[in-house]
C-alpha cells in the first residue's frame, strides 16, 4: 500500500478528480496548502506588482493498493498538467504505507482502502 500525495494547482482540482474517477479511484482527501516552487504568480497591490511568497495550492492524499499506484499517478498527471506542462504544475510524492484501517468497521490493510 502506498500513500500518494500530490500538490497541484487550485484550479485543476476538478479535472484531476474526474480523471481519478475515470481510473476508478474514488476516495481522496484534499487540503488547502500554500507552496513555493519555481512559479512566480504576480498580484497587484496599489499599483505595484508583488510576488507572494507562497502560492495557494491543493494537496491530495490518496491511500491505495500497490496496483493502483500507476493508474493513480497517471490520472493525476493527466489532470494536473496544464498546457503541456508549466512551472507551478506541482509534484506527486509516493510514501510507503504500513497499514490502513477503516474506522467504520475496523477492517485493516488492503481491503480497508
Amino acid at each position, binding site marked *: 500500500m502506498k500513500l500518494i500525495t500530490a500538490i497541484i494547482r487550485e*484550479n*485543476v482540482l476538478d479535472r484531476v478528480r474526474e480523471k481519478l474517477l475515470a481510473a476508478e479511484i474514488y476516495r481522496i482527501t484534499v487540503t488547502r496548502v*500554500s507552496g513555493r516552487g519555481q512559479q512566480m504568480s504576480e*498580484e497587484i497591490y496599489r499599483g505595484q506588482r508583488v510576488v507572494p511568497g507562497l502560492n495557494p495550492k491543493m494537496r491530495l492524499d490518496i491511500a491505495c493498493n500497490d496496483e493502483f499506484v500507476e493508474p493513480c499517478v497517471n490520472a493525476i498527471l493527466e489532470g494536473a498538467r496544464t498546457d503541456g506542462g508549466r512551472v507551478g504544475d506541482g509534484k506527486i510524492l509516493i510514501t510507503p504505507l504500513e497499514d490502513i484501517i477503516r474506522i467504520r468497521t475496523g477492517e485493516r490493510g488492503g481491503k480497508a482502502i
Partner: protein
Amino acid sequence: MIGRCALGCGVALGTVLFLGASSALAAGGSPEAVTVDSGATAWMLTSTALVLLMVPGLAMFYGGLVRSKNVIGTMMHSFTAMGIMGVLWVTISYAMCFGDGVLGGWFGWNPDYVLLRGIDDTIMPDFHIPEYVFAMFQGKFAIITPALIAGAFAERVRFRSYCIFIAVWGLLVYNPLCHWVWAADGFLFKMGAIDFAGGTVVHISSGISGLVAALYLGARRGYPASAMHPNNLVMTLMGAGLLWVGWFGFNAGSSVQSGLATAQALTATQAAAAAGALMWILLEGWHQGKATALGFASGILAGLVAVTPAAGVVRPGGAMALGAIAACVCYGAILLKNRLGYDDSLDAFGVHGVGGTVGAILLVFFMRDGFSTHQFVVQLQAAGVAMAYAAVLTLVIVIVVDKVFGLRASAEAEMAGLDHVYHGERGYGLLNAN
C-alpha cells in the same frame, strides 16, 4: 415635469403643497418663491444614502454566493456600477431620463441637465426639495439596476467587457425605461402604469436582461454537474440585512416627500419583506424539511422586489400577501430553472425578474382603492413592454459586446478564477499562510 409616484402621493403631497402655500402667504412673499421643505429634503437625503447602502449590500449578498475564487470579481460587479453609472448619471443619464422626450419619446433630453449644470439651485416646486437631491436619489437606481443583472452571469464574464456592457445597457435600456415610466411625458406614465419604486424599471428590466445574457453566454463550466457552493453564506446574510435596511430608502424615498405616503410605503415594504421571508422558509420546511438561511434571505428579496412597484398603493395586509405570493412563485421559478437547466448563476431572473413581475401585475388585486380591470390591463401592458424592450436590446448589446470585446471569460480564466485573472487579487488572504 416629473411624474414619479403621481399615484401614491395624493394625500401627502396635498399636505405639503398646502403647507408650502401657507408659509409663503404668511410671509407675504411672492407666490413664485419655492421654499425648501427641510423635512422632505432630510428624508430624501437619507433615502439617497440608504439606496447607496444597497450596493455594498448587494455586493455582499452576491459575493457570498459564488466560489471563493470569484468573490472579488463578483463584488466588483456591484462596485464598478457605482463608478460607471455614477459618472454617466451626472454626465448625461439624468438628461436622458428626465429631459423632455425626443426621438418620438424613446428617451428624454435636456441639454441643461448635462453635468447637472442647469439645476444648481433649482428647488422642485412639486416636492419642495432641491432638484439635486431628486437627481441623486434617482441616480442610485441607475446604479443598482445593472448591478442586479450581474447576478445572472456571475463567475463567467470578462471584467472589461462587463464594464462596457453596463455602460451601454444603462444608456440604451435603463434610461429609456426610466423615462417612459417616471417622466411626466413618458408613455407608460401617461398610460397610468403604476410603478411606485421600480418594479418594471429596476426589477423586471434587470431580471429579464440577466436571463437573456445568461442564456446567450451559456452555463458556467461544470454546471450543473458539479455543485458550486457559496463561499460565505455569512456575508450573504449580512448583505441581505443591508438590503432590507436600504430598501426603506428605495421604496419610502420614492414618495419624494416625508409624509403619509412615505409612511405607507415604508410599512408596505416592511410587511412584504417579513412575509416573503417567512413564507420562503415555511415552503422549504414543507418541501425539504429544513429552513435555510439562503432561503430566508431569498424570501426577503422576493418580498421586497414584489412590493417595490406596489408600495404606494397597497395596505399592509396586501403587502404581506404580495410578499408571500412572490416568495412562492420565485421558489417555484427556481425549481423550474433547475429543471430547465439554464444557468442563472445567482437567480437574478428567478428573484428580480419573476418577483418584479408578480408585484407589478398582482398589485392590482390589493390596491387601497380596490381592483380595477383597466389597471390590470395597463399593468400587463407595461410589464410586457418593459420585458420585450429589455430582452431585445440586451440581446443586441450582449452580441455586439461579445463580438467586439469578448464577453465570456476564457476557459482558463474561469478555471483560475476571475479574481486572479482580471483583478490580480484574492479575496481571502487569510486562507493562505503567508
